[in-house]
């Protein structure tokens, strides 16, 4: 049992068209990334998206264990999504839930299309996502962070993957649902996209929408994804720019004295 049941506001959108956290319908929550946060991983990234705090680590390409999972022509992708017991209002049981198992799979399927899997035959790429604080839309935030972790690991990608949830609240289509909108709203539509190609890698839906609303929602989501995509690219650049600035001078073209 959660200690308190906080009352849900009667209206999720006020007379000025603002949402409970004072956002407009097409506004994202504050979002920030940090790349390369786990030295023991081949790649890693941290995201804060609204109240979500999520860390993602990647190992690989590495040896496949158990061996029978190996594929002769491509790498195998394995994803694990875990939620900390204290990340939610009511303590989550430490045992893996069905939801965590499903989300692990959903995250894997969202990221795999972006990876040049055929470059790494007979190997394995491990993606581990740990939710430390949850505030609605954890799967999308997880995908955003994990896709950066893959890039940080130097794995060949067709594109980053950017994700956001769109939904319907008080009859209105809104971008990037928070926890209360997610629970109390009429519909929830998480999407993930390879933004350069506008190809969807994740599409789930719960609730009730007309065809027009659904297409509107998807377009609103794509707008948000462009912003997230830009922030992801900035985060990658920030990491390597930091490495440059740390090392004194920066050469115009990567002049190599070797070989």
């Amino acid at each position, binding site marked *: 049992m959660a200690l*308190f049941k906080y009352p849900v506001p009667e209206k999720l959108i006020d007379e000025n068209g603002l949402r409970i956290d004072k956002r407009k319908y097409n506004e994202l929550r504050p979002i920030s990334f940090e790349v390369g946060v786990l030295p023991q991983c081949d790649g890693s990234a941290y995201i804060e998206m609204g*109240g979500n705090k999520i860390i993602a680590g990647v190992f690989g390409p*590495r*040896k496949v264990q158990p061996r029978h999972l190996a594929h002769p022509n491509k790498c195998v992708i394995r994803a694990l999504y875990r939620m900390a017991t*204290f990340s939610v209002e009511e303590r989550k049981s430490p045992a893996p839930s069905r939801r965590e198992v499903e989300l692990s799979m959903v995250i894997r399927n969202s990221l795999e299309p972006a990876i040049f899997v055929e470059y790494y035959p007979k190997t394995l790429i491990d993606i581990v996502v740990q939710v430390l604080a949850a505030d609605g839309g954890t799967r999308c935030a997880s995908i955003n962070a994990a896709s950066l972790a893959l890039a940080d690991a130097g794995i060949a990608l067709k594109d980053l993957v950017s994700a956001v949830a769109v939904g319907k609240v008080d009859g209105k289509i809104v971008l990037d649902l928070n926890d209360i909108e997610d629970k109390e709203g009429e519909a929830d539509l998480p999407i993930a996209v390879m933004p350069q190609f506008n190809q969807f890698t994740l599409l789930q839906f719960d609730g009730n929408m007309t065809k027009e609303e659904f297409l509107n929602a998807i377009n609103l989501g794509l707008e948000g994804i462009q912003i997230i995509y830009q922030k992801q690219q900035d985060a990658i650049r920030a990491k390597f720019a930091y490495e440059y600035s740390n090392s004194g001078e920066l050469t115009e073209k990567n002049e190599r004295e070797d070989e």
Partner: protein
Amino acid sequence: MIKVDSYKIISDLEKRHIESLAKRGYRIDGRGFKDYRKITIETDYVPKAEGSARVFLGNTQIVAGVKISIGAPYPDTPDAGVITVNAEFSPMAAPHFEAGPPGEEAVEVARVVDRGIRHSDIIDKQKLAIIPGEQVFILFVDLYVLGYNGNMFDAGELAAVKALMNTKLPKYEIVDGEVKLVPEWTLLEIEDYPVSVTIAKIGNTLVVDPNANEERVLDSRITFALNSRSEIVSVQKGEAGTFTVNEIEQAIEMAQEVSPKLREILKA
């Protein structure tokens, strides 16, 4: 990379190198025998937890969170609240970790941290009783290891105690024998600040705060939890090696020497 099974096989070079350094008074990362790695602590890290802390000990990283619920006390301590510690090693913490239920290592960390807290009277558990014998506060302290680079015990103890130090309890009133919680919070009263000191025996040398490389070659290790009066409140000897009485005495002295510095960092 491949490390999953390779990790357990210590290269001969590595083992001899660390041992020969120890003999000459050096450690692989340049520390002295009584030096801890850099410790960084963040608090109030998780908004939905009643208390939380994130601890870095070098590249070892642990996030601790406290969740509170109300339930029945243990039959043998009907007028006391309950604290339980639980630990999970995320597969992201080290290349050789596998997903799955907590293994021996994670359970040992949770148990050792638990005993350090339990026997130091960090909290007056009677104050956690709401209706003695019937309803008490239950505090779940959950540790998530996000970076494994040796000495989970001391990092875990720091994280758990720090999370308890900023844990808030809800106020309550009892109406007709029913507990009614009021959404107002008070900070948990902390009565002692236990810290744990882990000492590794490498060859014949004792060093504090072993990193992962040292843990792989050590003969045995011993963890002391000490309360604010520098009394020993719990001990755990680990790994398959042995200690002599002299070594144990020496280890206790080391632990008593370094523990005040750790406590200072904890209370800062």
